[in-house]
């Protein structure tokens, strides 16, 4: 007979759930789903020790527990705080949380190059999503954005350090998936960076997974570099017999061509099963794979613009989809940079769009 799992009651934004002892606030919120789920930029359920760093998931604990009902004095990182029986949490119902989270988003974007037009991650970038949800139009930062010396990580993985939010996911991935981590974080503070110290290519057979865990465009697939915008590609689930991994992947196709292979991701953007480098980088022919069918993509995602799964186009206008808000920040850049035009060869674009371009365009508007 299965032992009864001990559960506790937690209330998030006035919705109560029973969750197993040891669940974090974030996990409990994910069980409820919808808008009560705090955004998470560094936490990754499959990576031990992750979370706590980006501070986007901060929530207010207005009641500690049934036993000790005192509120917690500070906002807490929901990804690293365990629930207690009778705990009451405020996420979207807390003005304090909203204020702090707006601050965190501003900090994350502060030194970000805003080069979405030339970034391969655009369209599936968690920082873009977060920016849409919480970002202000325009920036209060008037100084030169940080730059780094370029490091070459080898033939598979492209590093754009300026886009990195130092979530440490790639470090945990390399620690937990490969036998010897050869990249890490050098220096500290605002000059901390991802690097290998002595220039070295990352070549472990599972290291490609760092691309999938990276929430931004700091680590991208070199074999896909500038090949296409993700929203012009069509994701399909496929598998193959593989000696080292499950072989279950998503292929990103344009016509019959396989432009990119990634692991399959769940609704939180997390990898379902890790895949090996061979599957990811070497198998770029449809004949390498057994196709299962289209990957489900949230209708609200820009990727679903390829509307291959549902031929019915959403009736809402963009504004309606975005809850009455007129997204400007990132779309503006897209319109000035012209890279949405698929006839343009992306590798021909001269350098990243800078904040100047961006500031200039908003001032004119």
């Amino acid at each position, binding site marked *: 007979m299965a032992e009864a799992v001990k559960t506790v009651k937690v209330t998030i934004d006035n919705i109560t759930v029973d969750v197993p002892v040891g669940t974090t606030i974030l996990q409990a919120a994910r069980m409820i789903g919808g808008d009560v789920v705090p955004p998470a930029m560094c936490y990754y359920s499959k990576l031990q020790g992750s979370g706590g760093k980006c501070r986007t998931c901060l929530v207010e604990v207005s009641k500690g527990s049934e036993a000790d009902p005192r509120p917690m004095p500070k906002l807490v990182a929901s990804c690293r705080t365990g629930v207690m029986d009778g705990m009451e949490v405020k996420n979207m119902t807390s003005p304090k949380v909203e204020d702090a989270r707006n*601050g965190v988003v501003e*900090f994350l974007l502060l030194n970000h190059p805003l080069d979405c037009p030339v970034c391969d991650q655009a369209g599936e970038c968690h920082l873009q999503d977060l920016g849409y949800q919480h970002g202000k139009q325009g920036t209060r930062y008037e*100084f030169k954005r940080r730059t780094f010396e370029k490091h070459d990580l080898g033939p598979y993985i492209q590093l754009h350090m300026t886009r990195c*939010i130092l979530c440490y996911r790639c470090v945990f991935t390399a620690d937990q998936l490969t036998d010897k981590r050869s990249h890490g974080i050098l*220096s*500290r503070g*605002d*000059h*901390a960076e991802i690097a290998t110290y002595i220039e070295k290519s990352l070549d472990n057979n599972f290291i490609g997974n760092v691309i999938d865990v990276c929430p931004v465009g700091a680590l991208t697939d070199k074999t896909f570099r500038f090949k296409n915008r993700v929203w012009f590609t069509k994701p399909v689930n496929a598998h193959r017999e593989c000696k080292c991994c499950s072989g279950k992947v998503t292929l990103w196709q344009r016509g019959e061509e396989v432009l990119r292979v990634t692991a399959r991701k769940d609704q939180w953007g997390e990898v379902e099963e890790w895949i090996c480098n061979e599957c990811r980088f070497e198998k770029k022919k449809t004949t390498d794979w057994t196709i299962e069918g289209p990957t489900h993509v949230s209708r609200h995602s820009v990727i679903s613009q390829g509307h291959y799964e549902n031929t019915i186009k959403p009736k809402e206008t963009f504004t309606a989809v975005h809850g009455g808000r007129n997204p400007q920040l990132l779309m503006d850049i897209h319109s000035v940079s012209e890279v949405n035009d698929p006839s343009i060869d992306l590798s021909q674009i001269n350098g990243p769009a800078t904040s100047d371009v961006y500031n200039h365009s908003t001032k004119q508007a």
Partner: protein
Amino acid sequence: MATKLLLAKAHVEGIRHFEVYRREGGYAAVEKALKMEPAAIVEEVKKSGLRGRGGAGFPAGMKWSFLAKPEGVPRYLVCNADESEPGTFKDRYLMEFLPHLLIEGLVVSSFALGSNRTYIYIRGEYAWIVGILEQAIAEAKQNGFLGKNILGSGFDCEIYVQRGAGAYICGEETALIESLEGKRGNPRIKPPFPAIKGLWDCPTVVNNVETLAAVVPIMNMGGEEYAKIGVGRSTGTKLISACGNINKPGVYEIDMTISVEEFIYSDEYCGGIANGKKLKACIPGGSSVPILPANLLLTTAKGEPRLMNYESLADGGFATGSMLGSGGFIVLDEDQCIVKNTLTLARFYRHESCGQCSPCREGTGWMEKILGKIESGKGAISDIDLLWDIQRKIEGNTICPLGDAAAWPVAAAIRHFRDEFEWHVNNPELCQTQNFGLAHYADPIHVPA
């Protein structure tokens, strides 16, 4: 003469060496402690009211009693000698001149906590002190006060000295533990606290040098007697490292009943402001604590004289008070520019942030840049408000208190010296050649009836 429990023998010739230290009554605390039950020692420390001298002022006895004691798992005591807070240099003095006092305190504390391997994590720049400590350790060992079966009690204890590599953040106790384990010195996300899961995931107590040294007089005189010195919850004596525009910078041991005014102006301590200048402001507890203008430093908002202790310096909260912190007492005279001083501190925190969490990593750099702009006469009034908003969004939202420590000095400078910031904005050229001066910062404060 004030009570001197720690530094009384600091000037005895040769006190660095075991024979002299022993002749002067040293290691009596070890002899006494080893005949007691460890729990009874913890009890004495509790009774003494000793509060952590590293900055936060957490009651030491209480911290010790939180230490988990699972079967078959080692426990560790770690002495925090990282001392990198600008303005703080008391531990250096203690270790340099009275190394055996620290070793004695460590042996007693290790016994009380059940630590057979105790570490001193010392700031890398204190390179020469490592040798002094190692010599003291060797001497204590030769004389049976350290090592195997100390004084025949059956208690074994080794003390290791580990040098840091020049990072302020490694003074934060969990970053220190990471560094001690040979990793990058990033603060850990708490809970779990070190008392449950610390060094190598074992229960660990981290205490400041001065805290652990104070265990010696507590052992010798008993917790109750120790608690009679001082006032309220500020028991015992405190080392203050005084620096800045004073006649006699140095390390002083004070009884926490004296007033700030006495500490600054009496010849026994700072000896007044140097060069006949006037007092403008003071950071009373190390660079992280809020700066106070002269008037609020010397008296509380209620008009009472402010005393050099935990409660009195904190009187009025951050609105009108500050903190005793680590005891780094930085005095600024009328020629000092608050904007520049704040910029210097902001630069320090930007440089020392570990970079793990976004508010601290990004916010500290942003504040430094804005302060630089204001200081060079290129600021706008809106920059002052922006600074306020940034510090507000860092404070309380970070992994470790370094974020708060970076936010507080900026907040306090704007809170108390906003006129001076505005003067910089409104006089972009003048502020490059002239100083705002003492202005009204020493004027008697208006006490509401």
